[in-house]
């Protein structure tokens, strides 16, 4: 019998789909966290494949900070509609009320909008399983996290008390009140993600591609002046040909100067580049184990 050799992308795709179906079969009320980035885009595409011809049997949840790029909001709404899925948008009411923003509040911004916002949203809807698009290659602490990551009733992650994952067997049982974060694309690398987007023709936010954009430079980061809320300290925004390697809140996300206007150009630049992906995120610049600490507190 002739055998067909599966490529690495086919193997990864099969594994991710398997994980998603396991969650849908075993969880009571799953949700997919959707951040509109390229990893979310791949995850959503995999979900469509996993449950076709049915639409994915869970809603999308966007934990919004109100400070995302405008292009991200546009694609968010379109992607949910195209997939035939319900889109839930959650904004932490306390952060709304206090007007928390990245310019005045520093670390509190991430803490209140994202960490607290996520916990509140999960509690509000009673979700017991949440898909996230984290990859193990992003950061050293993530290399050790399980695909199924259990959280106590108050959302804390205990790195010493995670269940062993053998073969393709995931133990999804949990007590009432506990929840599980599931990372179906754990084993994908940044290159895998880009190749898959290229191969499958997945729509991503145009910010990943280079274009002339109004920017200022602060603390060594090129920041895009995406709307009128950006406080300009007598600075004049400069049009630069830039793109983003990772997307978050626009005042916290550094751009890179680039001429990469197509997907192959972007991949080419990524491969030839000499700094790692998370460099553009202000959140990681504190200290070696910053991500681990955030995760224990409940950050995704």
């Amino acid at each position, binding site marked *: 019998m002739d055998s067909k050799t599966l490529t690495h992308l086919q193997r990864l795709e*099969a594994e991710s789909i398997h994980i998603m*179906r396991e969650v849908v079969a075993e969880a009571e009320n799953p949700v997919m966290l959707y951040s509109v980035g390229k990893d979310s885009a791949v995850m959503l595409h995999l979900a469509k494949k996993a449950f076709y011809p049915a639409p994915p049997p869970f809603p999308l949840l966007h934990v919004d900070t109100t400070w995302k790029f405008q292009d991200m909001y546009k694609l968010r709404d379109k992607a949910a509609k195209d997939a035939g899925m319900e889109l839930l948008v959650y904004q932490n009411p306390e952060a709304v009320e206090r007007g928390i923003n990245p310019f005045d509040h520093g670390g509190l911004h991430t803490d209140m909008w994202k960490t607290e916002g996520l916990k509140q949203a999960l509690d509000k809807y009673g979700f017991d399983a949440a898909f996230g698009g984290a990859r193990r290659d992003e950061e050293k*602490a993530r290399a*050790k996290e399980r695909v199924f990551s259990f959280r106590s009733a108050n959302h804390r992650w205990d790195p010493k008390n995670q*269940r062993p994952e053998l*073969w393709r*067997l995931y133990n999804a049982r949990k007590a009432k009140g506990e929840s599980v974060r599931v990372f179906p694309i754990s*084993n994908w690398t940044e290159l895998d993600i880009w190749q898959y987007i290229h191969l499958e023709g997945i729509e991503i936010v145009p910010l990943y591609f280079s274009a002339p954009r109004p920017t200022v430079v602060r603390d060594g980061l090129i920041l895009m002046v995406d709307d009128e809320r950006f406080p300009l300290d007598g600075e004049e925004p400069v049009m630069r040909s830039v793109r983003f390697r990772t997307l978050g809140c626009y005042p916290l996300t550094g751009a890179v100067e680039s001429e990469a206007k197509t997907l192959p150009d972007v991949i*080419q630049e990524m491969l030839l580049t*000499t700094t790692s992906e998370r460099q553009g995120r202000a959140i990681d610049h504190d200290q070696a184990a910053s991500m681990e600490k955030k995760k224990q507190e409940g950050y995704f």
Partner: protein
Amino acid sequence: MNTQEPIYKTDALIAENIEQYLETHQHKTMLRFITCGSVDDGKSTLIGRLLYDSKMIFEDQLATLEADSKRSGTQGEEIDFALLVDGLAAEREQGITIDVAYRFFTTEKRKFIVADTPGHEQYTRNMVTGASTADLAVILIDARKGILTQTRRHSYLVKLLGIRHVVLAVNKMDLVDYSQEVFDKIVSDYTAFAAEIGIETFTPIPISGFKGDNITGPSENTPWYDGVSLLPHLEEVEVEDSREQASPFRMQVQWVNRPNLDFRGFAGLVSSGQVRPGDEVRVLPSGKTSTVARIVALEGDRDLAVAGESITLTLADEIDCSRGQVIVASQSPLEVADQFESTIVWMDEHELLPGRAYWMKIGTQTISATVAEPKYEVNVNTQEHLASKTLDLNAIGVANITTDREIPFAPYDENRDLGGFILIDKITNQTVAAGMLHFALRRAQNVHWQATDITRDNHAEMKNQKPAVLWLTGLSGSGKSTIANIVEKKLARMNRHTFLLDGDNVRHGLNKDLGFTEADRVENIRRVGEVAKLMTDAGLIVITAFISPFRSERDMVRSMMQPGEFVEVFVDTPLEVAESRDVKGLYAKARSGKLKNFTGIDSPYEHPESPELRIDTTEMTPEEAADLIIARLIP
């Protein structure tokens, strides 16, 4: 540092022709491997080296690495690659890692996923986890030390988990002057040992992870070695596709896709073989047959699906098929059984309790299963067989396992999905063990349930009553036996047919071989449960008076009975009160240490969470308690 030019530089192609590069890389295959060895063997250094040589390290990471190397590295001024792959902060400060970490790198030909399982007390659990998904194992040996106890342990686990490709990486060759003699001696020693434990072939390579010898290409320091280098070997070794696809078609149904009344798809990951529309298939365990109608996919229907792919298929006939069932090639069905011999790796702090019911997850099916007392435990270092009544954390043993229903399966050696399982504690939900099924026990195939003409309903009707089990649980001295006795007398006066099973009495006969260890207590209750079940089948009202301290066993007995027939009565007496009564003088003995494993003193009592009835003996007399119980039974 490294005298060789990395051969995996692809910058030129990326810069000149990205489209061609992408085309090449879209055809890469994937290899998962595990590295076995301790920190001293240079394992982390080797992995760091592979990442470095395959250019998976960026400048900012390199800068951090250089800074870290100076601060806490062990290699002086040189880059300490080991720091690249250490992880969590607390562990990093202690210089230990206690888990499985997954690393990724890629070359022109393959994507690699490396399971890194550093060795410490938790070694067995971690390595078994990492090895369960590996296609290949790299067993590291320090050239200065040769084959050690841990090499034997690693090799045994590699064999146990059925990893087909083994590389013996003799590391730190730079520290033995690249001596061929040293290398040959280690290879010859290992050859003898490998044959002993059943590893048929392996690939020995002399390397230095630190200096980079024979990693990406031949080293000039080992002119006597004309074999393959590590990375090229990892790139060339055969992946599992052809072997997996040559086996008959098997797919465990994961989820039934039912978007509307006209569509019913069966979703799952193809475990082995190939499938095409028109293939005749059989659904197990029911045995019903049908034909594959379509293989449905987002991008359009497919005409072929193979092992390793997640698919959705539809069948030509409307037959029952749900999650946990297995769709197989109709001409090659699987064996179906409910008793097996298995090897079990215990992974929990709390030891195996033979006879206790655990959840068993095998493929997409979760069922209830009990493990018998181990036939033997295996000393993971020497592979000797030891007698053992249980399995502790990191122990490996061979034991029979019984499931509460028949399941389709394959021996683990043939199919990891259909023969590999985990056990889950029903109360804590922790994964407590991993196991591998070897074969079905004859008994399961030959002993069939004998259907009798006089049914349990007939028995009950003749007695004009509804059978039930009144299960009294509570501390020693709480008054269970006293209350049970009164209940039985009152029921007898009401012409009810009853039987009282008392803890002490049962231990004089049926259970006289059992002691008071946790494992024996579990078995004690299991047997009492079985006897109570037979008696309810005979139509009786059974009253039991056992301490029965563990929730799991009480729940197990509950699950053996018909719904509603099990009435859990918690005879609730505070320990001080029970102890002050001390009718049999047992508490005094336990307090003085003359009596071990006494419930409430040095063995726990797990309170019922939602008993049908709770009797507070500090507030009512035994008579009143008995009336309350009877009122619950006969309203």
